[in-house]
């Protein structure tokens, strides 16, 4: 026969409305009693009642090292009472206090207020610089060699009588790098159309394929050469990552495009594509925001757009003042981030962590 030693004791235990949720949930958080701290308990049993003196029902028995439990499926604006028992070997620790809380609906996620302020600030900068651009105030844009080379690369393809290969990355359309790549595709197609140079756009993602096809078609129409659009030039290959890489390598080796563009999101296939392109002697322009793939592109390609340059490319190539002004807004925002980082660092040194809590504390 097993005897349990029953200890009724105080251990810190709190119940609160789960923050920033749709309601109907309370979070229970406890501190381990000193006797079991750092040890593996047998179970933590949570009891709930709808009144202080009512019958407590066992709602959950946890075998956990975590000290938090979220009780879901509750009625909003109704008070719930909790107590906890912790079972450890032959001992049971029961919380002396009964704690209550009321689940409520939150209508605004205050933990994300920092992001909202940042975005509104950014929108403010965009509006300011767009207004300036509309007034005709010119903005300086530093030279990006990779984008200056686009004209040269298209010209080279024309001179050699070979096509241009454009890879819009391997990711889905939800990836902003893919959208940025499709924006650049439009500019590249317009330049290729001026020289009547064919362009090949193999795709990995079905949604990206349909959009890329429309972008190419519309770009030819915009430049006034819809007759140059070859429906076979934009096509779907496969969803398989390495299947796609091998198919594109095959195109590079067989069709020998004079210019390869690798713009968008890439993973492990980046080097396979870039190295194969390098062996065919093509001029290669790459750009990605995948930090881990950048060294491969820098090594194997002639020009590489690093991170944000990919997002600035469309504005840089089009030279439209309104688009260029958004790059200026990015720079202004970067200056603010720089100031906040410096300020956060200084305040952090002096133990004033509120700025860090505000900036990074939210969910």
């Amino acid at each position, binding site marked *: 026969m097993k005897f349990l030693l029953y200890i009724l004791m105080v251990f810190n235990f709190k119940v609160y409305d789960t923050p920033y949720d749709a309601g109907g949930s309370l979070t229970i958080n406890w501190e381990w009693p000193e006797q079991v701290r750092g040890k593996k308990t047998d179970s933590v049993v949570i009891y709930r009642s709808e009144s202080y003196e009512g019958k407590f029902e066992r709602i959950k028995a946890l075998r956990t090292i975590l000290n938090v439990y979220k009780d879901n499926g509750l009625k909003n604006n109704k008070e719930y009472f909790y107590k906890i028992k912790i079972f450890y070997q032959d001992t049971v620790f029961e919380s002396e206090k009964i704690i209550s809380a009321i689940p409520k609906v939150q209508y605004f996620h205050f933990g994300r207020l920092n992001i909202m302020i940042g975005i509104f600030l950014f929108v403010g900068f965009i509006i300011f610089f767009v207004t300036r651009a509309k007034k005709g105030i010119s903005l300086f844009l530093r030279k990006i060699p990779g984008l200056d080379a686009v004209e040269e690369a298209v010209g080279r393809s024309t001179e050699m009588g070979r096509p241009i290969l454009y890879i819009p990355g391997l990711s889905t359309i939800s990836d902003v790098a893919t959208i940025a790549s499709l924006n650049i595709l439009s500019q590249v197609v317009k330049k290729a159309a001026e020289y009547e140079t064919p362009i090949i756009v193999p795709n990995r993602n079905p949604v990206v394929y349909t959009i890329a096809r429309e972008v190419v078609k519309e770009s030819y129409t915009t430049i006034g050469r819809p007759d140059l659009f070859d429906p076979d030039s934009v096509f779907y290959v496969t969803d398989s990552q390495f299947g796609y890489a091998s198919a594109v390598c095959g195109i590079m080796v067989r069709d020998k495009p004079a210019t390869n563009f690798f713009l968008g999101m890439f993973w492990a296939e980046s080097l396979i594509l870039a190295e194969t392109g390098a062996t065919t002697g093509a001029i290669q322009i790459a750009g990605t925001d995948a930090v881990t793939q950048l060294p491969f592109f820098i090594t194997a390609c002639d020009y590489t757009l690093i991170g944000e340059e990919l997002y600035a490319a469309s504005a840089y190539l089009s030279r439209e003042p309104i688009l260029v002004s*958004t790059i200026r807004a990015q720079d202004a925002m970067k200056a603010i981030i720089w100031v906040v980082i410096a300020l956060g660092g200084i305040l952090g040194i002096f133990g004033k962590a509120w700025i860090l809590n505000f900036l990074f504390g939210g969910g």
Partner: protein
Amino acid sequence: MLQKQIPMFICFIMGFLLFFQFYIPTSWSQSFYEMMLKWILGISSFAITLAIVSLVRHHWRKIKRKENIVYSATTIVSLFAMSLIGLIGGIERGTLFDKIFNSVQIPLQATMFAILAFYMASAAYRAFRARNLEATLLLLSAFVVMIGLIPFGDMIHRSVPVFAQWILDVPNLAAKRGIAIGVGLGIVATSLKIILGIERNWLGR
């Protein structure tokens, strides 16, 4: 005109709604988000049909033009054969479809992935030639990191792995964070430009 205005209007409304959805944690806001995810799945299904038509048409034209017939014929035959095998025999574990997938598709993918090692070697050779100061620094830091990450580094001196880790954690991470801040702003800027209708290149205009 409408061809341009309607997509921009849909984009603005959806961007605006989903922006505010992010800050509203109520149940109807969550339901709206889930509904949007279902719409993405629905649209993707239509896109797959278009993509398969494109694949077949692309290779069929190549066959008709007698251009690399072997590759195009293999693609079309494989596509239809696998679809038929899957439809007739199912795709569960142990079926013919599963066996072909595991013994043909997976080894082929693994082979492509394995080739990466050789490409890395050739790329490393090109990158690590000490042509100038930057390339020399790259060569030295790469050498220290490589030595530091293998047991041999610890055998040379206890501080070699520590120094290698410092290179990864301090100068390397600082550069990565700098790029990450720029990328983050670029993502927000691109999204805002599209939602506000400033960027229209995605419409081919």
